[in-house]
């Protein structure tokens, strides 16, 4: 395959596509509400109305407005239908033939869509993820060709460095620096790993990318392989994402068939193959060293760094490990240039970030926004605010992050501001809480999560999280005193400072941040020591339920 042939494939696909495309979301969220049935009924209706010549029904990836799914969008008219049922599906097609569409019509100009800036999700929900031709038709694999034929590996690394892209998995480490480190390691076997072990409660950005546009990640990995001198990549996806795995498998097969992965890509000397490894259900395997252990077939335990994976990673070879969203950003940077990418966002946080907006909020779903947008804009304008009541706090960064109170909603969303606010960017989970939410209960929820997910290797994380959970439960049961609270704070600091990997080091964050901003909620639950003697707790007010 050369560029001419790639363009020919794109042209053939563009000609094949019908003028009216009915996009039906077939991703996990909508699938749970029988999107597959809707897809079938839409197809049947097209046949029944003899519209095959100008209308086609396309099963696409996630459109983002998951809270109102299943979604169907008719393009190019941009008619969005929400909460479609299989029975209503046919009416959408009938509407093209003089009938009326039954489902609720959505507003594509709603701030939820209008305020977004789609870089990674540009073609999510617009192309069929199971057909590589659709990806090629929108310019797919041209960036890979550009990298191989118009740029040296060093120039590719340089572009990524200049773009200011930082790791989207949560840590925010400069991606270019990571690439440069692996590229500078002596020639020889090197690996690329795509970390798709997304596990934060309430986060589903990576799943959506893998399900909606798998080739974007595959192409990003191939470009990374070219840049750092690796010829083998692994995608580590959690087993709980069967659809993502299926679509990746199809994607890899199709790309191989076109000669876009495998040996001599675009007839060059560059080889790159990708294998999938499926996680066995451990959250800690999202930690890079544990993930590498897991790929090697070992127990998913983190190991001390240094040596960093960039020096000594998978099978002791230099390994570049990036998150799904990071790798999905690469093609856009190569296509449009580093300057374009670095013009988006803030001084130290460039580009866009996808957030999974969940919790007590009107508009649930995925939003891709430029860095620097405020939490208020995301929650109140795009998310439509809390259905009944007021926003109390926004939790970002999952079990490693923290809760940002309502008073700080004007905090811009970037790595440094969120960290300064006692939370972190994290992988992109954003859980909105209203005034009925108990912050102590939230802290307990996340601690329970960490307690269950700690690998058990190091003492502070294995047993500290259990003790912290016990203490939080004690507070919620109104059996704790001021001394207990002080003891808990001390233990939080100890677990944070002494744990081996990021899981333990950040596990106390939800407690520490709620203590920082909602200390009075903890204090209200404390009792005076004299009540402790009353074992029946008669004097103590009722237990708080979460």
């Amino acid at each position, binding site marked *: 395959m050369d560029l001419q042939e790639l363009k020919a494939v794109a042209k053939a696909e563009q000609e094949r596509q019908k003028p009216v495309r009915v996009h039906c979301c077939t991703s996990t969220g909508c699938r749970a509400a029988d999107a597959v049935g809707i897809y079938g009924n839409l197809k049947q209706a097209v046949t029944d109305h003899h519209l095959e010549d100008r209308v086609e029904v396309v099963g696409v990836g996630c459109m983002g407005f998951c809270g109102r799914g299943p979604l169907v969008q008719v393009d190019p008219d941009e008619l969005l239908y929400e909460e479609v049922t299989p029975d209503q599906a046919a009416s959408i097609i009938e509407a093209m033939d003089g009938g009326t569409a039954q489902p609720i019509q959505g507003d594509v100009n709603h701030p939820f869509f209008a305020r977004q800036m789609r870089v990674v999700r540009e073609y999510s929900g617009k192309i069929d993820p199971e057909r590589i031709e659709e990806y090629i038709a929108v310019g797919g694999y041209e960036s890979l060709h550009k990298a191989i034929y118009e740029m040296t590996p060093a120039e590719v690394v340089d572009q990524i460095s200049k773009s200011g892209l930082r790791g989207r998995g949560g840590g925010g480490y400069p991606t270019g620096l990571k690439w440069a480190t692996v590229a500078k390691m002596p020639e020889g076997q090197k690996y690329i790993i795509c970390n798709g072990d997304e596990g934060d409660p309430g986060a589903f950005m990576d799943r959506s990318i893998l399900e909606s546009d798998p080739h974007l990640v595959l192409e990003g990995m191939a470009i990374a392989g070219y840049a750092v001198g690796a010829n083998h990549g692994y995608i580590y996806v959690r087993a709980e994402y069967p659809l993502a795995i299926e679509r990746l498998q199809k994607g890899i097969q199709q790309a191989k068939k076109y000669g876009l992965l495998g040996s001599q890509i675009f007839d060059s000397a560059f080889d790159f193959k990708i294998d999938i490894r499926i996680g066995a259900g451990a959250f800690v395997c999202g930690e890079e060293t544990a993930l590498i252990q897991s790929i090697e077939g070992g127990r998913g335990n983190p190991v*001390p760094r240094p040596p960093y994976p960039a020096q000594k990673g998978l099978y002791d070879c230099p390994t570049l490990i990036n998150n799904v969203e990071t790798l999905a950003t690469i093609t856009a940077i190569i296509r449009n240039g580093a300057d374009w990418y670095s013009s988006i966002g803030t001084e130290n946080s460039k580009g866009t970030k996808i957030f999974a907006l969940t919790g007590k909020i009107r508009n649930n779903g995925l939003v891709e926004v430029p860095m620097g947008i405020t939490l208020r804009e995301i929650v109140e304008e795009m998310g439509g605010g809390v259905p009944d009541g007021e926003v109390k706090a926004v939790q970002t960064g999952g079990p490693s992050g923290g809760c940002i109170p309502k008073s700080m909603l004007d905090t811009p969303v970037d790595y440094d501001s969120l960290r300064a606010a006692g939370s972190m960017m994290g992988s992109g989970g954003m859980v909105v809480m209203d005034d009925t939410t108990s912050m102590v209960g939230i802290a307990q929820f996340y601690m329970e999560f960490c307690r269950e997910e700690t690998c*058990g290797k190091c*003492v502070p994380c294995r*047993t500290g999280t259990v*003790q912290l959970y016990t203490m939080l439960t004690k507070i919620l049961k109104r059996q704790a005193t001021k001394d207990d609270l002080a003891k808990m704070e001390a233990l939080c600091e100890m677990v944070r400072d*002494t744990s081996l990997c990021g899981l333990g080091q950040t596990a106390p964050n939800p407690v520490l941040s709620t203590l920082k901003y909602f200390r009075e909620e903890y204090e209200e639950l404390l009792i005076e020591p004299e009540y402790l003697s009353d074992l029946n707790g008669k004097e103590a007010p009722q237990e708080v339920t979460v």
Partner: protein
Amino acid sequence: MAVNTLTIDGKDIAVEAGTSILDAATEAGVPIPKLCHLEGVTPVGACRLCLVDIEGTNKMLPACVTEVWEGMVIHTQTPKLQEYRRMTVELIFAEGNHVCSICVANGNCELQDVAIEVGMDHSRFPYRFPDRGVDLSHPMFGIDHNRCILCTRCVRVCDEVEGAHVWDVGNRGEACYIVSGLDQPWGEVDACTSCGKCVDACPTGAIFKQGSTTGEKQADTEKLEFLSTAREKHQWTR
């Protein structure tokens, strides 16, 4: 041979580049508490007792797996480190069922020694009294999971020194336990050579010789170091 000079608790010392902080400290005569570390097997940095403060870094680093660098200034006994070490030992005691008075290792127990070293005389955290088992299916040895601190010394010594890999860690987090073979009774594991290295490696009384009673276990941890370095040191007897 490249040499690095560094300062540990005010003592200047020169060591070969690539030495771990722990080895450098031992050479300088500075004791650092440790539990999962065992001479002769790969360090894992799991017990977090050997964490030290290094000037210029904002993280405490485990001495057993961190290599020295030139001009390093190390503090091993800051008040914070002392407090954290004490808490770590408390957490370990609260996690298992450690009853010294009826333990085979009483008086010869590294956990006990560390508790004394860091000044832990009681636990501020509630004891969890987990429900754990005892496996006496092996004809010569036994494992009492109640006394296990999951240091994985047995796992490493069996794999790296004996080459049998009888032991491994099963499950996750608080439910972790040491498994023999494919989670079989120890006595049914064909790979076990009954060499007894795990007994010597175990810092507590979790793995013991059958027939020994309170305070009778004397683990010969030096034997393991001797075995693993005999060839390079050409020392065939001790």
